[in-house]
């Protein structure tokens, strides 16, 4: 089996897992959001890898060209990027409010403060 055939996908999986790990394991809220972004972006990379056809060009019609990469995943990812940034913006706004309400953005400190109540 040719390593190149799946190399892209393996790296993408590794990126995804790193993002997921940051999200689950780290206690800082901003770091968690960064993890979420990494996770989402790696999914984008996965989709775009899937759309590539070897030897093809970008899906913009030009005379003399016949082989184009698959445009559909590109469209889906354009939409997904927008969804991703919307989520990030909302999450960051929540973090700002949490900081104002609790004075910290570390998960365990927040939990300790909640328990005190």
């Amino acid at each position, binding site marked *: 089996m040719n390593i190149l055939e799946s190399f892209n996908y393996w790296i993408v999986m590794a990126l995804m897992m790193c993002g997921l790990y940051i999200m689950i394991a780290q206690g800082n809220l901003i770091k968690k959001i960064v993890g979420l972004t990494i996770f989402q972006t790696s999914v984008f990379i996965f989709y775009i890898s899937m759309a590539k*056809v070897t030897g093809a060009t970008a899906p913009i019609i030009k005379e003399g060209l016949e082989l184009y990469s698959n445009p559909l995943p590109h469209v889906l990812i*354009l939409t997904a990027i927008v969804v991703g940034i919307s989520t990030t913006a909302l999450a960051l706004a929540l973090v700002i409010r949490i900081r104002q309400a609790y004075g910290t953005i570390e998960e365990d400190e927040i939990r300790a403060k909640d328990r005190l109540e």
Partner: protein
Amino acid sequence: MSLAFIHISILCFLLVTVLAIVRMRDLLAVVMLLSIYSLLSACFFVVMDAVDVAFTEAAVGIGISTLLLLSTLALTKRFERPHRTEPVLALFLVLTTGALLVYGTLQMPPFGSASAPAHQHVAAYYIEQSFLDTGIANMVTSVLASYRGYDTLGELMVIFTAGIGVLALLELKTDTKVSRKTEIPAPMAAHHILRIVSKMLIPFILMFALYVQFHGDFGPGGGFQAGVIFSSAIVLYTMVFGLDAALKVISFAWLRFFAALGGLVFGATGVLALVSGKNFLDYHALAEDPIRAQHLGVLLVEVGVGITVAAVIILVFMSFTRQMAENGKA
């Protein structure tokens, strides 16, 4: 082969960047690395022929998301507290998911093969027919705005929701009129060089945004990218000349109005088709000639997208900045 070399090295860089992010405790460095990560993935998208996606990722990942993260950092704090717990469970979960994914890749259609089922069914139709159906050279634009235009309306509503959400979350604690007495400081405005250069740049940025907006039919670009670029001009203005000056250019009420307007322009295009007895978003209702109708429909829709995206991004950024001004006074 040389292309394979480029994309493999980009992928390795990506991996290194992410590993650095996992280890780093300085959140400012994390944000910077994240923007490098976005830049690298945008480069990767170019190599993979996804120029439109690369453009968007560059504008969003490097521009907007870094900007928002930095503003949040300014409002919270820069360093992450070291934590002592050993995340065994997290590691286990992550490794299980990873193993499952790798297991899935073992029988995937190989990378880059033209005979993979993904390229056969619907995609083949788009590649062969989209130019004949719509007369738009950029397939991504024609699929985005026409074939799957309804998804784009959904996407627009997602970003509208985010704008409304940020507005609802980050309201002012003090009354706006009271706080008007103290001028919100704009430390950057003291730099002559900065002021002059940004004044020189802003018209060009706005012009570029318009170019991107209307060039989407022929090359990479479209409403979303244009909106982001347009907003970046206003963001630059806000950063250099301060929030007060920017609010004189465009106030929150206007931004809210434009955010709603873009969605309504998109929706109205669809409803126009409904009224004339065609299905929702069927652009053929707009003109006799199908190609012209498609062009017109795509144009209107992209304008709607551009307006809302620009308005929401400015709105979000200004809300963040306003919080900063609040904090500064307190």
